[in-house]
């Protein structure tokens, strides 16, 4: 591989089939060393399958997987220097917490006393030292989760795989664990490959995100890029809230496409690679990148009627029914209320887009 120290995991055209069913379609990915990398996608899209291919619990049907430059796709799981935090934790019920954490070290051939000592340090890291002699069944879900984390980290794997480790926790604990995981990742410098179907979690925690759907990679990038520049309908829709407007591409010049929305409205936005004149595509516009006014202030404002105002703490979401019949969601931050008045339900309103807010999608 190009640089042995830079790429932690390289997946080349990996295909996974179960009988006639293809769970993964030629996935290619490079995960950098030290990265907090997230696999994000809806249920059944193949996240766990990809993780299991890396861990070695399943064999690839086609393609290769490299760990720091060494091909590992033919090695059994116990010969791969990666560890997994399982979704249901899979702690060994007959062993104490300390024995659970020490298990991997023992299997690596460390002496019992060394293994115990390091396991103790790991328990300190996840703040569970006082529970060392308990059995997993005597721990709460959140504590078990941290035991599973300590157990997987103890042998100092080159890459840590985490399969929806936080999904069983309540919201508050989950937020706390998100920060803790992020912290531990930075502290240990181990590459994390994190699986989740929660886009907010992915955006908060990741250095980079791979969005998957139906066994295929949809988009790969930093959280901000993925949020602001979704490539296609799936990504735009799955990540955050968005408004989708159907448009016709009228002209393309200098990488910009002129998109006609209706007779009186057209927008210029960056063209995507595959776009051709005359294509019917979609624009994605995030709700927080539009402003509501009582009067039309530019030629690009859309006239409509306020249907509903929804108060959601930090924001107010307003649903506007446009003259064309489609509905648009606009989000106004509560702190901006001084300058932007709330328009009451039933009143006319104009929706104005910020410059560059609209994003043309590939399909």
């Amino acid at each position: 591989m190009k640089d042995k120290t830079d790429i932690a995991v390289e997946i080349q055209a990996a295909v996974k089939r179960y009988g006639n069913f293809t769970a993964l379609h030629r996935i290619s990915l490079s995960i950098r060393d030290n990265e907090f990398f997230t696999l994000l996608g809806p249920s059944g899209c193949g996240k766990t399958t990809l993780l299991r291919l890396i861990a070695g619990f399943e064999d690839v049907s086609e393609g290769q997987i490299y760990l720091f430059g060494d091909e590992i796709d033919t090695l059994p799981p116990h010969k791969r220097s990666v560890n997994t935090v399982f979704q249901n934790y899979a702690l060994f019920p007959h062993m104490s917490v300390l024995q659970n954490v020490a298990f991997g070290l023992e299997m690596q051939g460390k002496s019992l006393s060394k293994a115990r000592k390091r396991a103790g340090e790991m328990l300190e890291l996840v703040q569970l030292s006082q529970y060392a002699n308990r059995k997993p069944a005597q721990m709460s879900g959140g504590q078990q989760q941290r035991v599973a984390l300590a157990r997987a980290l103890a042998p100092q794997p080159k890459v840590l795989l985490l399969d929806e480790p936080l999904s069983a926790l309540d919201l508050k604990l989950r937020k706390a664990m998100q920060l803790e995981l992020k912290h531990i990742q930075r502290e240990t410098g181990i590459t994390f490959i994190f699986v989740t179907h929660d886009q907010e979690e992915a955006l908060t925690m990741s250095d980079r995100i791979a969005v998957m759907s139906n066994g295929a990679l949809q988009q790969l990038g930093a959280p901000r890029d993925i949020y602001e520049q979704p490539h296609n309908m799936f990504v735009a829709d799955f990540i955050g809230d968005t408004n989708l407007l159907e448009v016709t591409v009228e002209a393309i010049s200098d990488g910009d496409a002129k998109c006609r929305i209706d007779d009186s409205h057209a927008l210029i936005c960056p063209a995507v690679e595959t776009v051709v004149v005359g294509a019917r595509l979609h624009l994605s516009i995030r709700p927080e990148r539009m402003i509501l006014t009582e009067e039309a202030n530019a030629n690009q404002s859309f006239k409509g009627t306020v249907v509903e105002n929804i108060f959601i703490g930090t924001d107010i979401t307003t649903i506007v029914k446009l003259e064309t019949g489609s509905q648009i969601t606009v989000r106004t931050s509560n702190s901006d209320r001084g300058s932007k008045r709330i328009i009451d339900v039933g009143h006319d309103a104009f929706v104005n887009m910020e410059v560059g807010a609209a994003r043309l999608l590939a399909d």
Partner: protein
Amino acid sequence: MASGNGTTGGSSTTDVYNKARHWLLMPSWAILGTFVLAPVCVMLIYSFLTKEFRGGVIWDFSLAAYDQFFFDRGLFGDGDPTLQWTYITIFWRSIWQAGLATVLALLIGFPTAYYIATRPENTRALWVFLITIPYWVNLLIRTVSMKFLLRDEGPLNDLLMSTGLVDDPLRIINTNLAVQLGLFYSYLPFMVLPIYASVERYNFTMSEAAADLYASKWNTLRRIVLPAVKPGVVAGCILVFVPSLGAFLAPDLLGGAKNFMIGSLIEEQFKGNAGNWPFGAAASMILLTLVMSVLLIIARPQRSAGAKI
């Protein structure tokens, strides 16, 4: 008020439940009392009575049965008591035969059970069915068939000689080996089925977790799978060991007179007119004590482990 009602309602339901449980358990207690406890008591009492010569007992208290078991007092019963090795030897042979049958059944039964439990779910019932098919035939008939198979002129020896593996027929019948084969064959499913049940309940993600933590196949089996399925293994061992210890069909039919086991010894005391009931009862009580001690030893760590989980 509402919550007060709720609480009383809750506790009275528990009361009703407890009462119902009490009554519903009565038939079980009655059956256990009539068919387990009462016969054991009869045996215990008979073992301390005096023998009647054509079978049966005379109601006179006597330690003669136990004395006969442990001590040799010469031909006329008036010599100095020396330790009687005849019966102790039979007991010892029974114990190691039953123990060996248990170990063999475990060695064959565990992989079998593991294999069945890891087949696709819809085919497992079929496998279990296949395992049990031979056992639809009466044990006596199967043991007689085994005798036929193992005979000097039987199919096994015919096969071995026709393939040229041996020149003279192997002497299997009327040896300890034949008894062992009979015991092992008779009780193998009692090993397979409980182990199968516990392996089926085993969460195989544990094995993945172990492999993920660098455990080889062998270490995964030893450190993770076996502790998890131990209840099934212990149950299987008990279910093979206990009936093997008291078995009389296999030793009688396959072992001949030299390879007597306790089961046959006891059986003989109650058969026809030649028997000695108090002696049979005493041997049974000694066997029972022995089995109970073994079970207590095996079951004790089991119980404390169960209590912890």
